[in-house]
């Protein structure tokens, strides 16, 4: 059993700074969980506490049923892949991978079998005699993975392992790691600041900020139903558009007014918000340039001059301002939008998100 549980875990450094005030999290056995968040949010510290490289200042950290607060790293049956690979520079690839097994005093034959088996899986056989400095970044990363795999641990910890690779290699390695997880049936805890990695790899994502968990959910749920404004802004690229709107009560129900627009909002729990501001959020792909959408949402049209049009191949990110509000929209490449164009686009009112302007918490829909 390789579940991981944080029970009111606190992390305070010697200088008195508390980076993690109260962490409660359960990671299931064989789950692939991604810790994501901006720099300094505590995700790496959380990972390092699982590894035993950082002391737990308070609370209980459990791997399986065992409390591991005071257990040294080598006794936790975990393996870690570092951002900088952390390969031993004076050892060959073979010796790097065999090192932990030698320390355990396994028989030579067993060590050789395990190393060669993993080297075959990761296509490292031609490089076994080379030193790390003779390898490319991607090869080094595979060696770091292989060094973890030979130990057959119950938990794999990966600390931004792809951040030093180029974009193409990152895509390949992402797929390889995901495949590895399915094959190994081990628990994976993966730290990244890249939300693309988080969205594509995790069974569940833990979004962190300032040492606190903002939301734990599946990638799609995080994307569709972000719990607060921070999660909504962090997940999704380009970032969700936000602007302040005033809540009005009209004859037919709730209405929102802001950025030169006013439109009806049915199906929202806006009691207590009358006359107050709420933050409206809408994703760039939910602002449409197509004629059919403009006809469907005549109340929710935004107009403006495109200041920048980023061509991404299959789509265009159009940056424009409407009613004093800066917006980003994702439009299909066939629209041919260019910088300087005057555009009219429709907000898909079924895809709006509302957040409390003070707390940032999501305002739920009814039902």
């Amino acid at each position, binding site marked *: 059993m390789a579940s991981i549980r944080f029970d009111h875990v606190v992390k305070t450094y010697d200088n008195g700074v508390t980076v993690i005030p109260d962490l409660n999290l359960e990671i299931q056995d064989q789950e692939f969980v991604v810790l994501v968040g901006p720099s300094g949010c505590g995700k790496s510290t959380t990972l390092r506490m699982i*590894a*035993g*490289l950082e002391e737990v200042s308070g609370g209980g950290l459990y791997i399986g049923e065992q409390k591991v607060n005071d257990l*040294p*790293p*080598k006794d936790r049956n*975990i*393996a*870690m892949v*570092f*951002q*900088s690979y*952390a*390969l*031993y*520079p*004076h050892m060959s690839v073979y010796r790097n991978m065999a*090192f*932990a097994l030698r*320390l*355990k005093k396994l028989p030579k034959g067993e060590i050789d079998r395990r190393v060669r088996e993993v080297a075959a899986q990761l296509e490292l056989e031609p490089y076994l005699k080379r030193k790390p400095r003779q390898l490319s970044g991607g090869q080094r990363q595979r060696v770091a993975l292989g*060094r973890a795999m030979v*130990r057959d641990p119950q938990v794999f910890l990966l600390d931004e392992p792809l951040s030093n690779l180029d974009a193409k290699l990152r895509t390949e390695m992402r797929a390889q790691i995901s495949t590895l997880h399915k094959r190994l049936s081990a628990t994976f805890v993966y730290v990244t600041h890249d939300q693309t990695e988080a969205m594509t790899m995790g069974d569940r994502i833990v979004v962190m900020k300032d040492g606190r968990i903002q939301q734990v959910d599946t990638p799609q749920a995080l994307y569709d139903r972000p719990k607060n404004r921070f999660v909504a802004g962090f997940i999704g690229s380009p970032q969700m558009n936000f602007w302040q709107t005033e809540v009005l009560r009209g004859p037919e129900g709730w209405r929102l007014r802001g950025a030169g627009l006013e439109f009806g909002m049915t199906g929202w729990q806006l009691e207590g918000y009358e006359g107050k501001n709420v933050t409206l959020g809408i994703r760039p792909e939910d602002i449409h340039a197509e004629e059919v959408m403009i006809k469907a949402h005549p109340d929710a049209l935004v107009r403006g001059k495109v200041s920048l049009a980023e061509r991404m191949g299959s789509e265009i990110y159009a940056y424009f301002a409407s009613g004093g509000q800066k917006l980003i929209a994702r439009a299909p490449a066939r629209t041919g939008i260019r910088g300087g164009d005057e555009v009219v686009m429709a907000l898909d009112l079924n895809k709006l998100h509302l957040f409390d302007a003070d707390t940032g918490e999501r305002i739920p829909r009814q039902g």
Partner: protein
Amino acid sequence: MKSRQASKRLKNGLFLVFFSVVSLAYLMPIGIVVINSFKRKAYINKYPFSLPTGRDFVGLENYRAGVEAIGFFEAFGWSLFITVGSVSLILLCTSMCAWYISRVKNRWTRAFYYLCVFSMVVPFQMVMYTLSKTADSLGLGNPLGITVVYLGFGAGLAVFLFAGFMRSVPLEIEEAAMIDGCSPPQTFFLIVLPILKPTMVSVGILETMWIWNDYLLPTLVLDQKKYKTIPMAIQYLKGGYGSIDWGLMMAMLVLAILPVILFYVSCQKYIIKGVAAGAVKG
């Protein structure tokens, strides 16, 4: 274009001449010692710069007599023992010390580091008398005891160099070793020490050259009736009333500097690396 090339050639030519003269100035004393080591002593004062030929040439007689007179091989043995012992102790202790103070950051380790750096600044002459008395009272006046004294004097430079290099060694490598199952001593000996090898070689070479050639410290500390290093033994060629058998002296000086020259030639690139890293002492 042509005039620029010509002026570059002229500049290179002038540098060549200048550094050739400087090199000759450095090599000349060694050359004079070597050629006079093969001469009869009566001719050394009269014709110090002439090559040994004919009546003044005595072959290896000065070498044979000198070795016998000063007990050269015994002195060589003690020099070797003290140098190897001291350098080994310095490398082992100071590398571990530098590892600790660069990884454990608190005011005590910071203070200790600055103490080591400060010790490089203190001139030996300031402490040599008290050192001599202290070594005597602690019973360090033997080849084993003097290695401890050399450890004390050599630690400053060595800790400074090792600590500087340790900062460039990523901590993740040691963390990976911890996760793989290394205890702290295993982490040091299996992972850190091999990475420190280039610096160990540089420090080892600098300390070796200093300790091998050192005259003053062994003279002050060692029981001279029982133990003599090569620099000390050579002094015994000075007879009563300041008379010196120059032939024997020259021959023994050649034998004394020969190991250092051979050592330097074989380790030249590491010495230059160490000097370039700011390791010059004295």
